[in-house]
């Protein structure tokens, strides 16, 4: 006898099956259509540019789940088994359909291997599902939520898989074909049927149960979190998109409108909770969670863009829900420090930093839900070009007594523009950085100048707070000053200015300014490598280094600062629990430096607890905002007798023997 498949073996009412299948497929199609038409509107809101992310990396992320493994072996294994089990069964089902309706090829050896293959996939799926349920309920993975559908979905799929095996087992028990051992699982289970007749009698019941559960699953698929199967690969594919910048002429509401990529992100998120686990804000206990924000944004996007909510009887509900959400926008909009920790760990590149910017842009445009302190900050930025003081020309104060060329005026050529930045030029503690750096540059013979009191704000704060128009204005002002003297080589004190000038400014220049932008740590590293800077003053100190988010995560600069520290004689560098790309945010980014938020926790104190655990006598950082935040936390958190805080620039000046002229190195350690 030639081994072959027996479709609808002994089952009557095939028409009913076809009817149910049609209904299930209709639900599937409706769900997919809703998603696709929703995503398509995002394309309109912000066009997709061609992308440059290597395809191999994307495929590895999708089919091997590389980013998922990083969150733990059990997660990686679970996903791999589910993905391949599911994929295998899906391909198998398609093959069966082809065999049944088009060309019959499932016979003989092919059929036997095919059966065995499906058994393996089914086994993978079942094991994956068991692991999934176990991880959520038995293993200590606190980041996982336990919402009803989180449990129902795997159990349902388990019922689908087990049902399939039972149907197969019944058929084998009833017919006992000679090739039954190829379907090894079904074969194993077939022993449970007492007799061939019992198996034959039970078969239709099992078959129908399996069919209904499976069709139900198909109908549910696009509406469940398994929709990520469609959205996540797309989201990963679009990760290399350039920053979306909308022209000033944007129509009302467009600034807050989500692009295709953002809408895909929303459906790609599986609520795995990795972002919550690393979010400094959520971890400090503030009432904010990036995962919840995404969930909420997804609901809003659906309300706004889904064709289903255009239906007359859903329209009122839509309006009511949108109103309610709008009232609550404030509650979630202003917590994020834009530290990027969430995006670093998110397996589908969906974490909500951009979404938060959009949310803020909407609030700023509308106006009445901007916290008063931030309003004051934005107004200062607008009128005085800095977030600190309502006074013009406050930016040159730090340089008193230093003879630095002012590049906003005409004068001799210099090699570098030193872009000091708002905080560094105005805050008394951070001014030490500017003085130290200008001394180091002078010492090393670097020819440089500044924009003096004309130096504008680079636009970072406005950008992070969602004030797009102000950001554009500031970028234009900056570029006008740069163009006046053809300044293209820039050194920044602040990682925030560095990030903005390097990544955002070029987007606003038609000719695409050929800027060479360095963070000062890169410049110092270069000077040291070139032998133009020699650290000859031993500093017998145990230090630890706090990576600023905008250096480490946003710009992957972790080695240069450490290279400098290692080059300083006598220094011993010890690392904190979270360091490098995993650095823990000081809490000063995203505009948080300038306002107090309800339920606020001191993020920097949490950071210093890690520093204290290292036993270091000195905490080094390389950002004016980090410096201020950590310095404050040192005082308020009771670390004053444990260690001092210093900026890398100040430490470099000391290692060069450029004794602090006026108390910048308060670190007396």
């Amino acid at each position: 006898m030639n081994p072959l498949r027996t479709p609808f073996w002994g089952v009557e009412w095939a028409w009913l099956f076809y009817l149910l299948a049609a209904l299930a497929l209709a639900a599937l199609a409706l769900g997919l259509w809703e998603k696709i038409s929703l995503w398509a509107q995002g394309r309109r809101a912000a066009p997709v540019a061609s992308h440059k992310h290597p395809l191999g990396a994307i495929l590895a992320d999708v089919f091997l789940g590389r980013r998922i493994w990083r969150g733990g072996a059990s997660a990686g294994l679970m996903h791999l088994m589910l993905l391949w089990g599911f994929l295998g069964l899906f391909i198998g089902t398609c093959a069966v359909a082809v065999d049944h309706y088009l060309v019959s090829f499932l016979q003989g050896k092919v059929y036997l291997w095919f059966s065995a293959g499906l058994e393996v996939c089914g086994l993978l799926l079942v094991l994956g599902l068991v692991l999934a349920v176990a991880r959520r309920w038995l293993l200590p993975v606190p980041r996982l939520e336990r919402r009803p559908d989180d449990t129902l979905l795997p159990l349902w799929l388990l019922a689908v898989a087990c049902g399939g095996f039972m149907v197969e087992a019944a058929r084998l028990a009833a017919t006992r074909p000679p090739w039954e051992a190829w379907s090894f699982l079904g074969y194993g289970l077939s022993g449970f049927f007492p007799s061939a007749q019992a198996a034959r009698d039970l078969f239709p019941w099992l078959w129908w149960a399996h069919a209904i559960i499976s069709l139900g699953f198909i109908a549910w698929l696009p509406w469940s979190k398994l929709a990520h199967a469609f959205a996540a690969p797309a989201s990963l594919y679009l990760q290399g998109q350039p920053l979306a910048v909308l022209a000033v002429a944007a129509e009302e509401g467009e600034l807050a409108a989500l692009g295709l990529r953002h809408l895909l992100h929303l459906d790609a998120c599986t609520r795995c909770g990795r972002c919550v686990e690393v979010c400094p804000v959520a971890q400090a206990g503030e009432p904010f969670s990036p995962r919840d924000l995404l969930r909420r944004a997804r609901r809003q996007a659906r309300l706004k863009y889904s064709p289903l909510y255009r239906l007359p009887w859903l329209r009122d509900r839509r309006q009511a829900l949108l109103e309610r959400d709008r009232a609550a926008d404030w509650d979630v909009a202003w917590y994020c420090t834009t530290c990027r920790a969430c995006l670093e760990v998110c397996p589908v590149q969906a974490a909500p930093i951009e979404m938060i910017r959009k949310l803020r842009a909407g609030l700023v445009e509308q106006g009445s839900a901007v916290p008063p302190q931030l309003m004051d900050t934005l107004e200062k930025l607008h009128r005085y070009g800095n977030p600190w003081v309502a006074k013009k020309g406050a930016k040159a104060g730090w340089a008193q007594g230093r003879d630095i060329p002012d590049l906003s005026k005409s004068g001799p050529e210099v090699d570098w523009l030193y872009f000091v930045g708002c905080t560094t030029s105005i805050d008394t503690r951070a001014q030490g950085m500017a003085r130290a750096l200008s001394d180091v540059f002078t010492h090393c013979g670097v020819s440089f100048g500044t924009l003096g009191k004309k130096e504008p704000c680079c636009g970072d704060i406005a950008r992070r707070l969602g004030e797009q128009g102000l950001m554009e204005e500031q970028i234009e002002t900056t570029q006008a000053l740069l163009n006046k003297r053809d300044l293209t080589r820039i050194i920044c004190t602040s990682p925030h200015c560095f990030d903005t000038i390097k990544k955002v400014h070029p987007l606003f220049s038609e000719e695409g300014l050929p800027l060479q932008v360095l963070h000062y740590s890169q410049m110092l590293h270069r000077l040291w490598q070139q032998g133009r800077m020699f650290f000859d003053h031993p500093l017998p100190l145990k230090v630890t280094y706090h990576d600023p988010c905008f250096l480490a995560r946003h710009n992957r600069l972790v080695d240069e600062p450490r290279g400098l520290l290692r080059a300083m004689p006598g220094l011993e560098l010890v690392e904190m629990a979270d360091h490098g790309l995993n650095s823990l945010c000081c809490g000063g980014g995203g505009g948080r430096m300038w306002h107090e938020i309800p339920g606020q926790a001191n993020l920097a104190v949490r950071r210093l607890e890690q520093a204290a655990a290292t036993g270091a006598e000195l905490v080094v950082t390389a950002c004016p905002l980090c410096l201020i935040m950590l310095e404050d936390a040192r005082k308020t958190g009771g670390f004053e007798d444990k260690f001092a805080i210093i900026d890398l620039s100040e430490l470099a000046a000391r290692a060069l023997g450029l004794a602090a002229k006026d108390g910048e190195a308060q670190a007396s350690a």
Partner: protein
Amino acid sequence: MKILVLVKNVPEVAEAELEIDQGALDLEDLEMVVNEWDNYAVEEAVRITEASGGEVHLLTLGNEDDEDVLRRGLAMGAHAASHLCDEAFEGSDPATLARIFATAVKGGGYDLILTGVQSSDLGQASTGVLLAQELGLPHATMAIALEPGAGEVVVTRELENNTSEKVALPLPALVTVQSGINQPRYVSIMGIRKVRKMTIEQIQADDLGLAEEALGAAASMVDSQSLALPPMGEGAQMLEGGLDSLCDQAAAILREKGGLA
């Protein structure tokens, strides 16, 4: 409800270093901003019309640059704006200003006129009330809440020591608005750009049909004589230098004067 709000552009002085040039504040290094109280008045008017319909018109008197204050108000949600802009208006005292405003406003059909309690630069707190007088309208000052109703507006007035008084005025009426009556919204750059194309009605002295003698310093009863900066306190001493040297100097002074045992 048709509401008129008077607004004024004033220099922001809180953190600035002030200088006096020929008897007037040197505006060179100062930023012009909307008078704080007027900002509250605009917000209140916009909220009233957002809640129950109507229109908000803005009116200012000043030079060409002062148009900014109108654009800002339009971006907040006002519907139209007029600009009294003429050299002949310069040097007017509050009574003269009130006369100019009254002429411009007459026949506008406003149900409610709002002004700030005072302007932060001159602080006379009288233009609003004088305008009510000129127009023959009932008025209330220092409003910390407004409840417009049919044919009347109920105004809560802020009095000393946290007491307040509620008064009802028949409409049309004029109310001067105290700070803190609301939380004015943020005006984004984008918002201001969006109203860039709205036309602002320009009104000159001729358009008002007022004789030259009735305008400016010539018509004013009050004449500004001089402006003075706060005097440096007795015994104040300004130290100069870097942080370390400042600390050393301060410590030395303390020691010298017996402040440090």
